[in-house]
């Protein structure tokens, strides 16, 4: 699964994307798994309410299932326009 990070999430984790092998069933489980892995992930995911997630380039909720998903992206609320 391709996991992408944008804006300050990218900066805190220190890379724009990575390939992750996971058994996580939902986005929340993936977040828990990454948070447990290293401090920089814990720092990025400390406040989930300040984050957004997209599954295969569509906005999703953190309780959404990951089954069949190829690309997960984490980022702060968007500031376009």
């Amino acid at each position, binding site marked *: 699964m391709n996991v992408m990070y944008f804006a300050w999430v990218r900066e805190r984790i220190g890379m724009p994307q990575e390939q992750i092998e996971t058994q996580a069933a939902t986005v929340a489980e993936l977040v828990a798994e990454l948070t447990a892995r290293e401090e920089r992930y814990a720092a990025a995911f400390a406040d989930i309410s300040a984050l957004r997630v997209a599954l295969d380039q569509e906005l999703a909720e953190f309780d959404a299932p990951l089954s069949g998903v190829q690309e997960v992206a984490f980022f702060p609320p*968007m500031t376009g326009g």
Partner: protein
Amino acid sequence: MIIRVQSDPFDVGATLNSFAQDRRDIGAVVSFTGVVRDTQDDLHEMQIEHYPGMTESAIKTIAQDAVSRWRLADILVIHRYGNLKPGAPIMMVATAAAHRVAAFEAADFMMDYLKSRAPFWKKEITQAGASWVASKDADEDALKRW
């Protein structure tokens, strides 16, 4: 429908002049231009990050939503990414319609949704350092108008 996501600068006036220019059924054209603001006179540049692929599809979805809600003759969105200087146009939306209410409302709607639903993130580089532009609760609340 014209949607462009690009790092290159663009000419707002020339774009507006060529937008929907061959249509005879248009009575109203509205444009919105977002500009890099430097209120405190300390901004070195604005860096705009985006999510290639999702950006284009998100903008297209928003524009199609606008077309389904209002009688529009045409709609245009240009949005830059990369490093921009103060005073530079960041993006523009244009809407063309027979009547002015549709053109105004659709452009207003587009801006509200592009602000909170198109995957762009702005970072300001000032003399004091770099900081990500925070989203405002008001931006999310604005979506409830539609």
